[in-house]
């Protein structure tokens, strides 16, 4: 089974977000990690390999720093990886990333493609349906379980008020939701072996994508702003029954939410 996992490196969720003078996010000192949703996908990929045999390949579009994220996936048990980086990619958005990944996937044998359903930084959740569309293969978005049977797979997709059981033919793309597979903690052996597993860097040329076509995305972030400081901290003092009464009154009369 050729399993390919699309991963992303993101800010650690605890990172303090600070804006620089020009409305951009200041990356200095921020801890970069393998995106948690990518981790679910990597773990599921490795479990599929353990069940059915095969190889897990990691694919990532990002800067040099993303190598540590790929090595983290190696330590968990992935076998090899490709980092697609190119200086001309600075202005990309999901549509650009999807094109690049689809082109790269054209060069890598794949039966199953896994990815996180969104990422914790920009979290647009667009990637998987776009990649599936470009490859003209089925996809199941926001998945909590995958069962593979030969050339078919049955996935459990989370919907607003429950879930759907969906069958697709392989190859297909699946996006991981929390609950799909709890990521393992790499063993020492895994950590040691990760250093030696093959990680190749590809440019847009290697992937066969015309730089001009992806130099700008369809959308652009013109600036970032911080949310308004929430004024909280008001404790209603007094005897509990009186305090409750006062609070309830406030929700009607002051906050006007009841």
């Amino acid at each position, binding site marked *: 089974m050729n399993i390919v996992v699309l991963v992303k490196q993101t800010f650690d*969720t*605890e*990172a303090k*977000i600070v804006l620089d003078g020009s409305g951009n*996010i200041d990356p200095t000192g921020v801890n970069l990690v393998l995106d*948690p949703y990518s981790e679910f996908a990597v773990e599921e990929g490795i479990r599929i390999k353990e069940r059915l045999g095969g190889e897990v390949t990691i694919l990532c579009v990002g800067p040099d720093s993303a190598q540590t994220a790929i090595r983290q996936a190696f330590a968990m048990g992935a076998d090899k990886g490709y980092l697609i980086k190119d200086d001309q990619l600075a202005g990309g*958005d*999901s*549509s650009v990333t*999807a094109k690049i990944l689809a082109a790269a996937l054209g060069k890598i044998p794949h039966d199953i493609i896994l990815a996180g359903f969104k990422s*914790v*930084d920009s*979290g*647009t*959740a*667009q990637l*998987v*349906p*776009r990649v599936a*569309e*470009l490859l003209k293969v*089925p*996809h199941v*978005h*926001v998945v909590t379980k995958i069962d593979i049977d030969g050339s078919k797979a049955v996935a459990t*997709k989370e919907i*607003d008020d*429950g*879930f*759907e*059981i*969906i*069958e*697709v033919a392989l190859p297909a793309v699946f996006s991981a939701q*929390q*609950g799909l597979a709890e990521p393992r903690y790499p063993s020492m052996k895994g950590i040691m072996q990760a250093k030696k597993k093959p990680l190749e860097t590809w440019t847009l040329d290697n992937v066969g994508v015309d730089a001009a076509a992806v130099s700008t995305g*369809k*959308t*652009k972030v*013109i600036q*970032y*702003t*911080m*949310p308004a400081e929430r*004024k*909280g*901290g*008001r*404790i*209603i003092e007094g005897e509990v*029954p009186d305090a*409750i*009464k006062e*609070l*309830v009154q*406030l*929700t009607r009369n002051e*906050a006007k*939410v*009841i």
Partner: protein
Amino acid sequence: MAGIWVFVDQKDSKLKKVIFEMLGEGKKMAQHLGEDLSAVILGKDIESLAGPLAENGADKVIILEDDKLAGYTSNVYASALTALIKEHQPTVVLFANSSIGLDLAPAVAQKLDTGMVADVTEILYGDQIVFKRPVYAGKAFAHVVFDDSARPIVATIRPKMFIAPEPEAGKSPQVVKAVTSEFGDLRQVIRDVVRKASGRVELTEADVVVSGGRGLKNAENFHVLENLADVLGAAVGGSRAAIDEGWLESQFQVGQTGKVVAPSLYIAAGISGAIQHVAGMGSSKCIVAINKDPEAPIFNMADYGIVADLFDVLPVMTEEFKKILAEG
């Protein structure tokens, strides 16, 4: 051609509240661009929905009915909708940030080779239309614009961020029956659908959410929360702790890795207020916190807090809300 389109998420012929919110904002956008507003529905036996859509601002209601559209499947809907868009060339297509919207919008955007912005919480109108959306779990907002060549603009809208219009009762819909033969190949086969009916309003739709955390101590105690939710007509949610302990099912988790909610009133009982939970409810209009630990971080962001044992507070609070609601 032009037009602001609102794609209508429908389930069992019931319209989600967010659709009306999108129509409200869609109207604003239509006026800004000097275009008209259409609601677009795909499905089977959906004509009855045209009325409410028109009453809430849709100039036109575009209906595409076909047996193949009886239930949502990704590629079939995406292909059909893409065909309609290619035919009518709207400027903007809005989707709800629901599980259908999340799935359909990117597929359609890719088929049309256009851009998409997701989870929009505010729209700013100037020389360009700027779409504001939360990033980094709400720690910052990204302001997104579309390249002039990227059309239509595809966006998914977060519920409860925009305002539904005052419905014009009795306004008759201008129905446009759409026809297409582009249904694509059936890439997905739905084997089963399991709806977890809780009888309560759904978390992301609710106006009021009552949420419990570790302080509830066990699953049985949640009835104290449920009583309050009943009185308030609220949805019940929980922090990660409550889900991990097995007191609530995962669909009720509010937080960074669960659902993001923005009700008018969010009551957090026995929740400490870790950043991961706050990421899921920080945009609520009014936050009430009940915790016996005065140092709990949630008090820092709550509009009103009570430091007391939730088991002492909730029953009394339920009675008080009952009384005040009875007053009318």
